[in-house]
Every structure is written in C-alpha cells, then in structure tokens.
C-alpha cells in the first residue's frame, strides 16, 4: 500500500482501444499503416538477404569461371555467355553454344562473356554496393550531426563561420570533387568512398542544425543549463536523441544517392575495379556486351531500380510517420 494508490476504486477501467501511445510506437504504427512503406521495407529486406545469401547458395564464386571437360575431345569448355538456365524452364529459353555440356548446371541469370555465374555476381555486386552505401552514410551521419549540432548550438560567430564553409562546400559540383579526387587517389573503391564522404555530410549537417535551432529554445534545455549541464552534455546527451527521426529519414534518402553515385562512378571507370564488381560495374559489363549477350544487363538494372524504389518508399513512409500532418492522422 502506498500513497499513490486509490483506496477503493480497484475496478477503474482504462481505455485499451484508444490507449495513448509512446512517440516511437506511434511512428511504428503509422509507418506500417502505409502500403508503400511496407512494400519498400520488404523489397529492401529481400535484397539484403539475397545479397548476403545469394552468392553462398549458388555454389559458385563471384570470380570463378565455370568450365567442364568435353568428354569426346578432352578439352576444357568454358561456360561463356550462357543464357539463363533455370531447371525445367531453360528448355523454353534459347540455347547458347556449348549448351549441352552444361545440362546439369544451374545458372539462374546465365553467365557473362568470361563464363562467370551472373546470379552470384549480381548479388555479390549488390553486397558491395550496399556495403559502400551503409559504411559511408554511417560516417557521414556522425560527421554531419556533430557539425550541424555544434554549429546550431553555439550560434553567433561560430555558426556563421561554419555555415560559410558549408555554403562553399555546397557550391562545388559533385563532379568536380570526383575529378579532383581522381587526380589525387588511385581509382577504385577508396575513391568512391571518399567522394561520398565529402559530399553527403552536408545534407545531414543542415538537418541537424535546423533541429538544434528548434530544440535549443525549449524549456528542458534551459533546465539542463540551469542545473549546470556542460555544453557537451546538452548537445550530445539532451538534443541529439531528439534529432534522430529527421536524420533517419535523411539516411533513407542518402543511401539511394550513394548507390547511384557508386554505380555512376563505376560505370565511368573510376569506381570498382575488376575482378571486384558492384551494381554499377555490372551494368557497365552488360552494356559492353549488349549486342551479343543482351540479357546480361537486366539483373543488375533491376536490382538497382528496386533498391532505389525500396529506399525511397521507406524514406517517404518514415517522413510521414515521424511528422504526421493533421489530416493524415
């Protein structure tokens, strides 16, 4: 028995149908109420799972060239440029030269001009693209948030100096940054990552700063200051957790940008180098062989488009779920 318990009315009924929700639970419900965001989430999850498991399931290595020994001549026959071979279904599709030698093998997406399994390569490429995107965006979030929060919190001279810098950094076209990097760095995965690190933090910092400007006027910050909390504690302990929502939304829109940029750089020839592959370099490979092996370009394009679609849908859904307009409630 304590002081806060009602003495008699033990049968008070609480309204369970319209119980008040915590903020994050509300976000969760609103997010899953939208068909589009659920579709987006499913697409992304399926692609991530396939990117992890796909190369393992196929039984080929991404750089392995499949071949068999021709029993009649004893020579090696390489599985070059085979059309997709799906068990049972492959008889309906066209036959490539040497087809009969590989009658017992499965190439779900076919093989490329060197005889590598495209199913394995596609998912391996998706894995590389996703990894690049996740890693760079994670670092960009940290940089951008620190920059934006500090700039917004201190205001005044600090803010205007930091914002002039952002203005200048934002006026440099992405292409110029990439070209200057290409002068300084060897081509390859490192160049893609650095290019993304330099460009993508700006958006994050703007959002973090805007949130900080909003939040720092609130009473609980004043209370924190009155109680003697240090600047560091207020910025990272009190304000940061409340900026998570908009930042996550921005992340969902930054990941497709990162994947797109990576694909574009690899296509131009300053990104991923052989024999590594990514979605972009696979599209380039497909394009180079389009007249002879037109099907080769299709899987990476579909994966790229679906990734864009999925992340954009999730981003849209999250934005609406985090800041619902009155009419949507």
């Amino acid at each position, binding site marked *: 028995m304590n002081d806060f318990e009602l003495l008699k009315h033990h049968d008070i009924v609480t309204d369970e149908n319209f119980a008040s929700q915590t903020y994050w639970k509300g976000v969760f419900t609103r997010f899953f109420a939208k068909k589009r965001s659920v579709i987006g989430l499913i697409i992304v999850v399926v692609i991530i799972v396939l990117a992890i498991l796909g190369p393992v399931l196929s039984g080929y290595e991404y750089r392995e060239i499949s071949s068999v020994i021709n029993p009649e001549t004893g020579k090696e026959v390489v599985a070059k440029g085979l059309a997709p071979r799906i068990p049972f279904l492959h008889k309906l599709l066209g036959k490539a030269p040497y087809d009969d030698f590989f009658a017992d093998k499965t190439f779900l997406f076919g093989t490329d001009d060197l005889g590598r399994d495209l199913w394995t390569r596609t998912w391996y490429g998706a894995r590389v693209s996703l990894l690049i995107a996740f890693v760079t965006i994670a670092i960009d979030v940290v940089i951008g948030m620190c920059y934006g929060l500090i700039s917004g919190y201190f205001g005044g001279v600090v803010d205007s100096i930091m914002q002039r810098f952002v203005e200048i950094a934002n*006026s440099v076209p992405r292409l110029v940054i990439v070209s200057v990097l290409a002068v300084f760095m060897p081509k390859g995965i490192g160049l893609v990552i650095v290019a993304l690190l330099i460009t993508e933090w700006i958006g994050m910092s703007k959002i973090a700063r805007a949130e900080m400007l909003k939040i720092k006027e609130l009473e609980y910050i004043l209370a924190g200051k009155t109680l003697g909390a240090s600047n560091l504690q207020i910025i990272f302990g009190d304000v940061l957790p409340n900026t998570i929502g908009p930042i996550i939304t921005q992340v969902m829109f930054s990941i497709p940008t990162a994947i797109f940029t990576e*694909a574009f750089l690899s296509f*131009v020839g300053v990104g991923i180098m052989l024999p590594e592959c990514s979605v972009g370099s696979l599209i380039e490979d497909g394009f180079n062989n389009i007249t002879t092996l037109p099907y080769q370009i299709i899987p990476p*394009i579909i994966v*790229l*488009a679906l990734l864009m679609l999925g992340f954009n849908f999730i981003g849209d859904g999250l934005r609406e779920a985090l800041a619902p307009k009155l009419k949507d409630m």
Partner: protein
Amino acid sequence: MAKYIVKRIVTSVVTLLIITFLLFFLVRIMPGNPFPSERMTDEAIAAKRLEMGLDDPIMTQFIRYMKKVCVGDFGKGTSLYNGAPIKTVLNKAISNSFKIGGIAILLGTAVGLILGIVAALNRDGFWDVFCSVFSILGVCVPAYVFLIFLQYTFAYKTSLLPYFFDSMNFFKSTIIPSVSMSLFTMSTIARFTRNEMVEVMDSDYVRLAESKGMYGTKLVTRHILRNALIPVVTVLAPLIVDLLTGALVVEKIYGIQGIGKLMVDAISGEGIDYNYVLALGIIYSALYIGMMLVVDILYGVLDPRIRVAKKGGDK
C-alpha cells in the same frame, strides 16, 4: 531587393573565386615534373621554370592564370587531343552539350508540366496513377539505362535512329540522348507540379475563387498555376545544371563530344590531364553557382512574399 541581389552576386563571385583557387592549388601541388628530366639538364629546366614562372609564389601564378581564364584562355591540354588549345575543344564541347541538354530540358519541362497539371486536375484518376508510376520509374532508373534501352531497341534492333551521335545528322541523332536525359527532369517536374497543384487547390483562396463563381481554365491559369509553379523553379535549377553540363554517362555511351565526355576522358584515361581537370572544374563550378544565383533572384522576383521577407530580414 536591389541590395539583396547585389549581396547575392558578391557572395557568388567570392565563392567561385575560392573554389577556383582551391582547384588551382590542388592541381599545382601534385607531384611530378612538367619537363622530361632525362633529356634536359638541370640548368635548362631551371631556366625553363623561370621563364614559365613556375617558381613564383602560388598567388602570383594564380592571378596570372585567372587573367588568362577571364579572356577564355585555358592553356593547352597535356595529353588529350594532342595538346590542342583547350579553348577550341571546350567551345565545341559546350555547344554540343548545351544543344542536347537544352532540348532535353525543354522536352522534360514541357511534358512534365503537362503531365503534372493533368494528373492534379484528375486526382486519383488514370493520369494521376500514370503520373505517380512514371515519376517513380524516372527517379529509380538512371538516364543511362534508358539510353541503353533506347539505343538497343531503336538503333541496334531496328536501326531507325543512328547508333552513335553524328553531328552531320544532328536532328536524328539527338533524339535518343535527349529523350533519355529528359526522363528524370520530366518525372521530377511532373511529381512536383502535381503535388504543388494539389496543395494549392486545397487552399482557402482557391475555394474563395470558386465560391465567387470562378471555374475552369480561368481559375486554373490565374489562381492555381501561378502559385503552384513558383516552387517548381527551385527544383528545375539543379536539373538544368545537370543536363547542361552533360549527363556524363549518356555522352560517354552515345559518343557525344560534350563536356561530360571531356571530363570522363580527362580523369579516366591512362594519364590524367590536369589542365582539362582544372578548366572543366572551373566551368562546372561557374555554371552551377551562376545557376543557383539566377534561381535565387528569379524566385524573389516571382514570389512577392519572399521579396518582402528578404527585404525585411536583410541584416
């Protein structure tokens, strides 16, 4: 307003100067010797360096370079096009890129606007659904994929259109690149116009106009479109810059001698051509910053609310 414009122009010029200096500085500190040391003596190299002013302080070198750039002289390429003057190569590239980019912008904006307006007027109807599917497609699939697809079907399979760009056959060979480049603009503009229109159509002043008995074309053109189109200007600007400065990959695939192709050639070949990187970097940055400036000013001119706010808020 005048004060705002002047301030905006000054900051743009300063930003451009800073970027140009950074580019210049970065390219200058690259290791490497411009003269073949095995064929020249140390004294000869020293004399040549003195003659070309390579030992001057970097600020002096920069000012000398900028003086030349102001009259359009970017020097010569080191490895591309056998050292032809960059100015001539660049002029041709810019004109190619601008022609195709211009067509793509016109096409994308016109079709995008019409699609967006039609979608908003038939809300939840067929065109609305079509518009949203189309805009999703346009955002999810890069322009070069459309290009590859168009090239494969219309040039390779059916040979209705040329497979590569050919300046002799300008009209026919611009169809594939400009259509594929315009799709992103088209879808973005369509979606944006549609959303803005819908928002404006739900606003009180449109309801007031309707209740006064205004309807049809007059209502759409005088009240809805005017207000819905202002924000479209902002999304249009970065799109224009992207298209004018050449969709890099599109130019590379379709063999168009444009700025984008030049940039790819300068950075992705065996030897990197520093002079081209520098010249193109300046051109790109100038176009980008210039475009942002135009949009900011245009936005103020178009929207009286912003004009007033900026006048009041100017410190």
